């Protein structure tokens, strides 16, 4: 249980570890996109953690990084094909960032720092925790940007008009991320 919550709060990949910033900033133009990106990463992370935990004892040390990358790339392609088949709209709006999950440092980071030293089940929990942390962060970020920039929640407009455009553009990603990070650190400081 501790493994699960560590990824969400103490080791939150976005606000504490500050990993995987590229998809975080680029895909969170709406809550739905952020959540989609988070869930795709979660799926890859859980599967790669389990696979690497299972294979790690068999892989010689010197070729472990190439081996991990091949495994991760395969999983990403699997997720990509399934998204293309069953959620084509989401696949289109995330575009290049789906294949780029391969080089998301959260995934290789967890493989190196956790999965190759622990069992399959613990790695599953760790992947789930960190993946959920990433998903929640991206959804919140996307939600705030969408509310301010587009006056809508999960694609449903709550008011007419145009919103504050800058929040759905690149600078808005940095502004919201910075504010959320400050808030997150402030809150976790008190505990």
């Amino acid at each position, binding site marked *: 249980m501790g493994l699960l919550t560590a990824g969400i709060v103490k080791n939150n990949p976005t606000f504490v570890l500050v990993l995987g910033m590229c998809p975080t900033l680029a895909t969170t*133009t709406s809550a739905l996109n952020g959540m989609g990106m988070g869930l795709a990463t979660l799926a890859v992370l859980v599967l790669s953690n389990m696979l690497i935990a299972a*294979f*790690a*004892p*068999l*892989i*010689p*040390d*010197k*070729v*472990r990084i*190439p*081996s991990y990358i*091949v*495994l991760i*790339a*395969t999983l990403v*392609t*699997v997720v990509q*094909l*399934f998204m*293309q*088949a*069953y959620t*084509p709209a989401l696949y*289109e709006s995330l575009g290049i960032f789906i294949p780029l999950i391969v080089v998301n440092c959260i995934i290789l980071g967890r493989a190196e720092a956790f999965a190759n030293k622990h069992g399959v089940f613990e790695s599953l929990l760790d992947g789930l925790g960190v993946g959920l942390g990433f998903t929640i962060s991206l959804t919140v970020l996307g939600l705030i940007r969408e509310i301010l*920039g*587009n006056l809508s929640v999960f694609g449903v407009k709550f008011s007419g008009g*145009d*919103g504050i*455009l800058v929040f*759905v*553009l690149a600078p808005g990603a940095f502004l919201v991320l910075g504010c959320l990070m400050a808030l997150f650190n402030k809150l976790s400081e008190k505990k």
Partner: protein
Amino acid sequence: MARQSTFKNMVATMVVICLFTSAVLGAVYVITLKPIQNAQIAKTNAAIAQVTPAFDNNPVADSLRLNYTYDGKTRSTVAYIAKKGGKIVGYAIEASTMKGFGGRINLMVGFKPDGEIYNSSVISHSETPGLGARITDSQSHFVVQFNGKIPDDKDFKVAVRKDGGDVDAITASTISSRAFCDVIRDAYGAFKSINVNSNNSGKEAQIDSNE
């Protein structure tokens, strides 16, 4: 702990991993091949249905490859033919431009047999959200103003007013608006080539006389 990093071990490990992953990828590819194709066909059909009058045939099956010249370049695209009761009610033509503010804009433009624009729909684009991306709002004045017009220069010059045309551009998005006009002109160029590309006369003969 991890096996020794001897040459033999390393090569064997990599080979096994690559074989394993290839097998997984092959299997997943086969499983998802059909759904991916279906999803793409559904998307094309949805776009066609949006830009042509109601039809009862399968426009993808009745499509026509068009070769035409636009802007000094030879191009090629596909016209999907919408028929109702065997009669042609419209053509959906896919066209694109690289002149958008964010690069490529893909558009499906629907024409009635006499060359009138029925409707148009953006398939993909990378224009600025809130500004140029308003070309995707099918209810907006900008998109609606093309409908029911024949985009030859006599009745309706497809260019923004700044360039001496008849199109009201989107405020603060002149480049996106220009690019949109460019695609419409491109699609009309393709439409005009339908009679050249097909030996099916009749409807097409009327277009000739219109010009």
